């Protein structure tokens, strides 16, 4: 017997019994052949249902388990308890007998679902050890022989195992088992083979340096949303739901999900829906990859060009006809590091370019090229206390900085080594200036050690 239904179980039939013995005991039994391939397919279908309804991160735990990341998903349901209640109700309606557990680690959740008494277990904050230590060692997901071996050694529960001296236990029982234990207790991360999003409306980014700050993640989100919206536009689709998946350095994943009332491919709208959730994210030691997918999409007609747009196009065309095409431009971020090269010019109509990095203090007006000033600074890494610009002396009363900028490594050799330390300074009248000192103060190749004024706030 591979598996038995509830009524069969109430007759005293257990999985693992020989069929002939059961037939003798209970005549007229309905028996179907076990079909492992069909079971696996059904499990996968159920996984995709979970993926669609609850969480962007779902992994298979064959032959009969599913793992789902609840963090980043349960808040949409008003908490874990409500999400689990909905899940249990729907599985029950579908005739699927299920045992559910939510725990801080995947191994612990797996052990609780399979070995705890109640069919639904939610581990309260800080209650991880209390919840899993009394469980049988088999909860760690051992090979068949291993559990028997441990029982022979008198190790019945996970707690027995955790209380052993580590060195001796490692020698005697093998490191893989200890790793399972550490994963259950959350000391070691457990990367899970999460299912890929079903459809191909995906934007991906890998980061040269792992990112961890809210600003950097926010910027990555904006980049990904812009790319995804281009794909959606090309496919004539609008997103009804977007899933953001972030791969941490340790191989674990975090996810955010956002839904829309109407199909949308408005980058600002979609980005905002994700950005307001960034606080739910735990970047861990840093995020090295991110992907954004439209896991639910609906056809969305191309933007209607209304009369207002037509009038705008016509007016811009008339201005361009008189002044020349180069006289009209929209700003976009140029992927250059020095401020005077950081703005690209796009034609006035057409797709938007990359957005400027938010939250960097930048002056409202820029002097290009920067003008030299005579400045007195006490120390190399300090802002000037006094500077003279265009013959007027400004005494500095407050300052902020430095923000260091480098020339680009791919640029000309002369520019490559450039170093500038930028300061925002306020003079006694309250006017604000953007000054930089050229060079790092040590290597003459990095700059001439003079002060320049580049912008006004």
């Amino acid at each position, binding site marked *: 017997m591979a598996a038995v239904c509830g009524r069969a179980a109430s007759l005293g039939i257990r999985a693992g019994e020989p069929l002939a013995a059961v037939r003798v005991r209970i005549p007229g039994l309905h028996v179907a052949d076990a079909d492992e391939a069909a079971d696996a397919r059904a499990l996968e279908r159920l996984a995709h249902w979970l993926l669609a309804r609850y969480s962007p991160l779902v992994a298979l735990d064959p032959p009969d388990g599913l793992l789902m990341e609840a963090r980043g998903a349960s808040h949409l349901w008003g908490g874990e308890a409500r999400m689990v209640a909905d899940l249990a109700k729907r599985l029950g309606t579908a005739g699927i007998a299920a045992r559910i557990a939510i725990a801080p680690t995947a191994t612990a959740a797996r052990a609780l679902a399979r070995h705890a008494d109640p069919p639904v277990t939610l581990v309260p904050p800080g209650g991880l050890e209390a919840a899993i230590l009394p469980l049988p060692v088999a909860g760690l997901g051992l090979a068949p022989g291993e559990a028997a071996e441990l029982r022979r050694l008198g190790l019945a529960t996970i707690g027995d195992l955790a209380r052993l001296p580590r060195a001796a236990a490692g020698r005697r029982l093998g490191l893989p088992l200890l790793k399972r234990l550490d994963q259950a207790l959350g000391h070691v991360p457990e990367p899970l083979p999460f299912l890929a999003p079903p459809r191909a409306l995906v934007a991906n980014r890998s980061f040269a340096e792992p990112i961890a700050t809210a600003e950097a993640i926010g910027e990555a989100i904006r980049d990904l949303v812009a790319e995804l919206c281009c794909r959606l536009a090309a496919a004539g689709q609008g997103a009804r739901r977007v899933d953001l998946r972030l791969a941490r350095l340790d191989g674990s994943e975090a996810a955010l999900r956002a839904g829309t009332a109407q199909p949308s491919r408005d980058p600002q709208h979609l980005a905002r829906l994700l950005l307001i959730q960034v606080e739910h994210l735990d970047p861990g030691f840093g995020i090295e990859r991110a992907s954004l997918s439209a896991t639910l999409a609906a056809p969305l007609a191309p933007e209607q060009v209304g009369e207002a747009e037509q009038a705008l196009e016509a007016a811009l065309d008339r201005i361009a006809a008189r002044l020349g095409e180069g006289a009209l431009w929209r700003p976009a971020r140029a992927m250059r590091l020095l401020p005077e090269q950081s703005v690209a010019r796009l034609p006035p109509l057409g797709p938007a370019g990359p957005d400027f990095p938010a939250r960097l203090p930048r002056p409202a007006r820029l002097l290009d090229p920067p003008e030299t000033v005579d400045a007195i600074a006490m120390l190399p890494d300090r802002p000037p206390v006094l500077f003279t610009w265009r013959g007027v002396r400004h005494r500095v009363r407050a300052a*902020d900085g430095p923000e260091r900028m480098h020339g680009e490594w791919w640029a000309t050799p002369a520019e490559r080594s450039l170093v500038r330390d930028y*300061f925002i*300074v306020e003079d006694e009248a309250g006017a604000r200036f953007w000054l930089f000192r050229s060079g790092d103060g040590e290597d003459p190749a990095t700059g001439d050690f003079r002060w320049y004024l580049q912008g006004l706030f």
Partner: protein
Amino acid sequence: MDRFAQNQQPTTARAHLRTLETLRASPRPPRPRVPLGDRRLDAATAGGLARGALHALTSAGPGFATATLLAARLAARAAGEAGWTIWCLAPGERAQPFPPALVAAGLDPARLVFVEARDLASRLMAIEEAAGVAAAAILEARLEGEALMRVSRRLQLAAERSGALLLWLSPTSPEPMVAATRWRLHPVPSAIPQLRPLFAGPGGAGLGPLRFRLELARGRGLPAPRDWIVEMSDDRTPGTAGLAVVADLADGPAPAGPSRRTARAAA
């Protein structure tokens, strides 16, 4: 490029004619004003800057950059989620508007068009065209005397016809001119933050929000002159100009203080 080739096609011209006709036919409902974002400023201006009118923002010296930032915030507020902003630059100015700051002030770079024209006639043509289609149009120009009077009257008429918020941004503040409101900005020392902000490097205690004296020199139907000490907060919530009054200087002389004196000196 192709966009401009379409210029010659009759369809765009026809569409434009049609738009003009619909505009003429339907009386325009009163448009909401563009609030400055602070209760006291909005009370003093009967709710903010009127659309369909010309407003002058001027500041001499380094304060001109602050006026630029304020213009960007007001234009962003006027443009909202869908409107366009057209910014006529004066190529002769040494310090040009720096788009990253304007975008941080709330303008959407996808709907912000700069127009560069050396001669005033071209700039005026551009701004009149822009006023008809954009939510906000900004003109940078140094003007005075008879030319200023003539130009400002022309711009005010263009604004009235279109309903756009028209801003004249100038590093000089000459008289007389036609405008719904005329503002002068003067830098004022900011409050040094008590808590050193996280981003402050070794270079200083950090800076508080940008502070200036905002002077309503003339306002049609408004009590003027009035002035306030105002802070430009870092608040980037869409739809706010982010101004906060820190001191109402009433309409009389301001209380003597270092900030007022230095502001005068700077002006």
